[in-house]
């Protein structure tokens, strides 16, 4: 079958994802762009016997090599044989999309502009003379309403036609004589090099002072000569050339859009969005509403997911029983039950929660609330060195750290993703709760709620301190100023929301599922050998490791090997801390045994350790996937170190005060 490549580009909030979903339906997958953590979405559809492979490029306002997202888009268009570039434009804010069209046209000739959300533009009293736009830009314009599936068939037909036709005359933006002259001069220098990038595009990048492309070309051309020319040009015009380019683009486009606009009667009172914004971003009410929404999501993810999770657990339990009662060898039974089902099962049972998490997040994104949430939480996050958007995955970390780390995909830059991901493991997820309930029930039965609350609070404080620490000593960057567009409020497009949630859940299942199988196998081998009859005991490798690490906790108040083993199993999944004690001491004697080994101070110290060190293997593996192996290992050691340090400090200070 003949295949074609379609790349989708556009500004954020133009409905790119909706169009991508409308074109590809469920035939899509999500992953990462090679070597980076930016999400890559691919899908396909078949039309008139041709398979159209659709790639969703990261949303962008401009094209500079300095932004990871934008460099991906540039390189994809340069390195791949893209048959049609589909630019999704917000019909109610066309100027900015056309500015991107001008930039993209320097990279690609075969472009279709999708005037999406045309219904919203019409409600604002705007319609366009498409013929006029097509004549000026020499590209096809198609009107769509992505969330209602209107115009999608026409779009498919235009893409099909575009693939078949030859572009005879491509659009070239004219920046005016002065600027065009200097572009030509630089282009002449670059032309000699025979590079992958179009020489005019590179010439414009040099004029825009794009450091990445300047460094790319510095040793290949006489950059000093070009730089002197640019300086001279700026001196004459008394203005920075990069600003001249932007102003020229917007100036000319503004004129074109004014000519192409057909004013209609305004239907919708846009002021409604403004009124809602005043409440949602209010300095006092805004944070309360934000917390309430997060509370609803947090509860929704777990309350609605619980029956499904229990159902999966039940099936897994039945499967385990079936295997236990089979004629398999004890070795195989243990491998299947303790190794595979317990390991992979612990991930699979999270799937309903993860699906719900992405479902709610997609709703927030689709309605436009996500940008408002970033505004509301910006004040506190700004002080830490991040901006408002980071607060969303952090709060969701209270539910489960794994989807919360995946949720950092909503952050645009790598530094923000790393900082937020490093701090998420300290947010006390639901898996820590059984540990708290066990110990507070035994040692703090009268103040159980208060003690558990103090642990949640401690997690938040350490999380913030982690951001501050890494930002001050590792990244050493000023906090990034927030500039975020607030799209008008929209009703979510449910099909798109469901597709989004399922695609992301599938990605989680595939990646975490395969990696956790390997992790489970390693832990099982350590627990099973060399004495299979004493699974997870001091006589096996896991117990020996427990004995090696337990002296580390001499000053934390719990330097016995059982605690060491429980903490090791806790890396696998925090719930296993409790079940390890159950296995080692026996469920019936658990309370009495723990009272022998622990006192209130050492039990609190142990809870601090359980709270702060790496939550689970799945979190580690997701960190590895999302921010890379180096940072995942740093997080592993950082969480362990902070856990050890704070639990030891607590225990020592407590004993000192008590002694004093």
């Amino acid at each position, binding site marked *: 079958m003949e295949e074609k490549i379609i790349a989708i580009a556009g500004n954020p909030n133009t409905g790119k994802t909706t169009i991508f979903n409308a074109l590809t339906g469920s035939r899509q997958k999500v992953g990462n762009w090679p070597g980076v953590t930016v999400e890559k979405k691919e899908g396909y559809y078949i039309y008139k016997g041709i398979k159209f492979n659709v790639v969703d490029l990261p949303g962008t306002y401009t094209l500079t090599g300095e932004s990871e997202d934008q460099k991906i888009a540039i390189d994809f268009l340069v390195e791949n044989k893209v048959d049609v570039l589909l630019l999704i434009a917000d019909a109610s*804010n066309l100027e900015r999309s056309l500015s991107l069209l001008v930039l993209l046209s320097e990279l690609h000739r075969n472009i279709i502009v999708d005037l999406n959300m045309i219904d919203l533009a019409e409600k604002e009293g705007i319609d366009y003379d498409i013929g006029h736009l097509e004549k000026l830009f020499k590209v096809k314009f198609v009107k769509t309403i992505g969330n209602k599936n209107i115009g999608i068939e026409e779009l498919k037909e235009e893409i099909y036609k575009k693939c078949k036709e030859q572009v005879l005359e491509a659009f070239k933006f004219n920046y005016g004589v002065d600027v065009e002259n200097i572009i030509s001069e630089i282009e002449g220098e670059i032309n000699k090099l025979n590079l992958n990038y179009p020489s005019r595009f590179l010439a414009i990048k040099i004029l825009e002072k794009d450091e990445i492309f300047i460094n790319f070309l510095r040793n290949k051309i006489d950059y000093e000569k070009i730089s002197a020319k640019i300086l001279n040009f700026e001196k004459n015009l008394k203005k*920075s050339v990069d*600003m001249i380019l932007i*102003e020229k683009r*917007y100036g000319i486009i503004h004129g074109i859009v004014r000519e192409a606009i057909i004013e209609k009667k305004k239907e919708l009172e846009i002021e409604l969005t403004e009124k809602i914004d*005043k409440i949602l971003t209010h300095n006092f009410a805004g944070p309360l509403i934000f917390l309430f929404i997060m509370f609803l999501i947090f509860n929704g993810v777990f309350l609605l997911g619980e029956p499904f999770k229990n159902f999966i657990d039940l099936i897994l339990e039945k499967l385990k029983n079936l295997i236990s009662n089979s004629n398999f060898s004890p070795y195989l039974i243990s491998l299947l039950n303790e190794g595979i089902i317990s390991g992979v099962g612990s991930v699979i049972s999270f799937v309903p929660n993860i699906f719900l998490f992405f479902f709610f997040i997609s709703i927030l994104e689709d309605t436009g609330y996500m940008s408002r949430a970033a505004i509301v939480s910006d004040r506190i996050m*700004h002080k830490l060195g991040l901006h*408002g958007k980071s607060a969303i995955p952090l709060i969701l970390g209270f539910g489960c750290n794994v989807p919360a780390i995946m949720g950092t995909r909503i952050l645009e830059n790598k530094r923000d993703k790393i900082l937020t991901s490093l701090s998420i493991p300290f947010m006390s997820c639901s898996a820590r709760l059984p540990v708290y309930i066990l110990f507070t029930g035994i040692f703090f039965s009268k103040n159980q709620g208060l003690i558990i609350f103090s642990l949640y609070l401690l997690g938040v404080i350490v999380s913030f301190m982690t951001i501050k620490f890494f930002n001050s000593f590792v990244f050493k960057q000023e906090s990034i100023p*927030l*500039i975020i567009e607030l799209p008008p409020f929209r009703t979510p497009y449910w099909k798109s929301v469901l597709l989004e949630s399922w695609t992301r859940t599938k990605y989680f299942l595939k990646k975490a599922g395969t990696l956790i199988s390997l992790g489970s196998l390693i832990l099982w081998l350590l627990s099973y050998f060399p004495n299979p009859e004493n699974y997870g005991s001091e006589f096996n490798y896991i117990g020996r490791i427990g004995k090696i690490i337990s002296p580390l906790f001499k000053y934390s108040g719990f330097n016995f090997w059982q605690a060491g083993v429980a903490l090791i199993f806790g890396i696998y999944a925090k719930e296993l801390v409790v079940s390890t004690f159950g296995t080692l001491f026996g469920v019936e004697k658990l309370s009495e045994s723990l009272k022998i080994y622990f006192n209130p101070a050492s039990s609190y110290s142990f809870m601090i350790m359980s709270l702060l060190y790496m939550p689970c293997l799945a979190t580690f593996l997701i960190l590895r996937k999302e921010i890379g192996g180096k940072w995942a290992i740093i997080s592993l050691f950082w969480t362990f170190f902070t856990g050890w340090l704070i639990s030891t400090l607590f225990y020592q200070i407590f004993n000192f005060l008590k002694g004093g």
Partner: protein
Amino acid sequence: MDRLADVKEGKYKILEILKPGKLRKLSNLGIFIGDVIEVIKPGPGPIIIKKGNMTVGIGCGIAMDIIVEKAE
């Protein structure tokens, strides 16, 4: 002349954007010196402005470097 971070709700004209990097960021969004903007949510905290059909949230750090004057 006031800093955007200090003004109340209302319409303002942008007179100057002090840092070139911030000027470029805003320009890429389609906000330029000379534009008339409407402040929907003033400081403290991030400021929300409106230009045409576009609503933008601006952090305090940037708003401090945007010099505006009251527009008619």
